[in-house]
């Protein structure tokens, strides 16, 4: 008997069906790994307590503190102070919940703490073929390993805590093929910003993306995570990349990766996790990496992106009235004009960090431009590593010294100014070039204005004080 050719998505989906979808009910889908953080979990634990339910699989669950945690320096006692009483209460609540329900926790200030989507891969928890969920839309990050990973709401966090399952209708699949080879100075962030600019922020709604093509194969795991991370900014809940040798080498030897004979068994299985020849996607889009320039956003959603060498669109470029109104509203908020070039625009803050771009390779890229240079004294430059482990690695490589010597702030790990819950935020009217994932109104602080870009573009801008093409610094 031969089976019909399957996409990578179908293979993972089919493996996790506890009860199949019917015309009346969605599928019951098994979750291999549940990641928990302080912001979207408290009400779910309350629900469990009210119903007298336990966490079904605490050993397939792990929690971290990242969203509301300070990234300010440790005190003399080695402890990171939390001056915000409400944030402290939320962190204490997570500690209580993890203790009461038996869930392992990476607490603030401990050696493996960090952003939820940085620590999963770092610990070897994120593995090909898994289903992974978290009460956070950037859970799509883990798809870089060929895992079906997506964000859920707090009700669903409760569902997974109690049953290790979710009710899901099967999404459609879209191949996102990136042909060609990236040019120097252009990276993963530029690919994903270009894709979202092409399809719009709702273009992927209802789909799971699978990123394919030569440009994807040439990327490191960290770069692949950057791309999958922002799948949700194109409307897709999940983005996948088929695992290959790069994936296996990244995972091997990590704390929770399979060891010994179990490694060989896992590897043999992971090597089957590809889209079969002849399998079909519901849709396909393509992008040519050869002609890609560094990308930057000009507006108030991640789809409002342009090549850094380009100009802001005009009303005449928009096809419908809602888009024209959207452009007008965005440019008013950003205090920018139609047709304007962004190169040379002065900024107040540069933020290098977030689950999109806070991994060691991101920091190396930023440091490669900052080494031997100083940042413009008018610009506040924050470098926030994604985890305590990334911080340790960067310090072992001397990157911290490069940043500090250049005049940047070298901070503790966390989400920081990406979501601006923890006091790291823009002041009203300030402009920032940020390596994070969202440029929504007020996202980085009420009244703050965000330009999303790559770590290289952020570093180039930090040095010159104005929006700069990193290829000009080189």
């Amino acid at each position, binding site marked *: 008997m031969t089976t019909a050719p399957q996409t990578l998505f179908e293979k993972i989906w089919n493996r996790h069906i*506890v009860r199949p979808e019917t015309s009346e009910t969605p599928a019951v889908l098994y979750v291999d790994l549940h990641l928990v953080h302080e912001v979207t979990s*408290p009400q779910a634990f309350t629900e469990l307590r009210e119903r007298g339910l336990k966490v079904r699989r605490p050993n397939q669950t792990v929690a971290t503190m990242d969203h509301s945690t300070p990234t300010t320096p440790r005190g003399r006692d080695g402890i990171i102070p939390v001056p915000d009483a409400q944030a402290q209460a939320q962190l204490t609540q997570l500690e209580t919940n993890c203790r009461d329900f038996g869930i*392992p926790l990476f607490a603030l200030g401990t050696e*493996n703490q960090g952003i939820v989507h940085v620590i999963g891969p770092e610990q070897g928890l994120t593995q090909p073929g898994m289903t992974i969920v978290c009460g956070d839309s950037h859970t799509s990050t883990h798809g870089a390993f060929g895992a079906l990973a997506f964000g859920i709401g707090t009700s669903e966090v409760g*569902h997974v805590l109690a049953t290790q399952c979710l009710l899901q209708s099967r999404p459609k699949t879209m191949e996102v093929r990136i042909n060609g080879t990236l040019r120097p100075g252009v990276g993963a962030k530029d690919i994903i910003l270009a894709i979202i600019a092409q399809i719009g922020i*709702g273009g992927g709604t209802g789909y799971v993306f699978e990123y394919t093509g030569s440009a994807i194969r040439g990327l490191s795991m960290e770069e692949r995570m950057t791309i999958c991370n922002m799948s949700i900014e194109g409307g897709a809940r999940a983005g996948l990349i088929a695992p290959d040798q790069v994936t296996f080498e990244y995972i091997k030897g990590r704390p929770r990766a399979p060891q010994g004979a179990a490694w060989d068994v896992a590897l043999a299985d992971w090597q089957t996790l590809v889209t079969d020849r002849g399998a079909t996607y519901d849709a396909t889009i393509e992008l040519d990496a050869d002609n890609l320039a560094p990308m930057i956003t000009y507006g108030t959603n991640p789809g409002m992106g342009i090549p850094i060498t380009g100009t802001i669109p005009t009303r005449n470029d928009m096809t419908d009235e809602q888009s024209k109104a959207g452009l007008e509203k965005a440019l008013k908020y950003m205090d920018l004009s139609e047709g304007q070039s962004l190169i040379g625009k002065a900024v107040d803050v540069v933020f290098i960090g977030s689950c999109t771009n806070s991994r060691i390779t991101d920091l190396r890229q930023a440091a490669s431009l900052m080494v031997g240079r100083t940042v413009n004294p008018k610009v506040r430059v924050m470098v926030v590593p994604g985890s305590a482990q990334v911080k340790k690695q960067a310090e072992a490589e001397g990157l911290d010294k490069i940043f500090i010597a250049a005049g940047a702030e070298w901070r503790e790990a966390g989400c920081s100014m990406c979501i601006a819950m923890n006091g790291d935020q823009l002041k009203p009217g300030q402009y920032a070039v940020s390596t994070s994932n*969202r440029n929504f109104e007020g996202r980085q602080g009420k009244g703050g204005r965000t330009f999303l870009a790559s770590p290289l573009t952020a570093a180039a801008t930090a040095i010159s004080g104005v929006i700069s093409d990193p290829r000009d610094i080189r």
Partner: protein
Amino acid sequence: MESFKPYTARYAVLPVENIDTDQIIPARFLKTTSKVGLGEILFSDWRYNDDGTPNPSFVVNKPEYQGVEVLVAGNNFGCGSSREHAPWALQGFGFKAVLSTYFADIFRNNSLKNGLLPIIISEETYQKLVSADAEAAGEVEISVDLATQTVTLPDGEKVHFPIEPFAKYCVLNGVDQLGFLVSADDDLTTYESAHAARVNTAGLV
């Protein structure tokens, strides 16, 4: 969750596309550990001035829109973050339904879990609702009936809206989905006995 009863209600229009969940409830308000009181901070950055006073030009602050129970919003409502605080805030304010030509996936799922109806309408229906509101601000009404999946527009026209059978059943009967999942325990136990856990987090600190 309460079971759904058909209703007739006045509505407010927010004619902005891509309203993301950071606008519905900004992240700085997510340090709460409960669902209570979020209605007061719904659309906070648009609804209040910097000094905390209500912005008189924002739609729900206008006298004629007091007590509205339905929101009509531009395309792709609820994009961005997965925060369920967004539907909690909309419900806390008093909204029972949001009508838009398109909803982001996670927001739509989260809303249905709480009985807040995300009603997908055509561009034509959207324009009719915007026009009717422009003629009689805050006075026109629509009726929502989930059983028949219809919205009755101010001119009496009935339009059909889509919803998955299971979500419809749950909202209509006030059944929460966790109960359904707990009832799938036999299948789950069978699955788990056939599939070893793919990862073990025990002992991680």
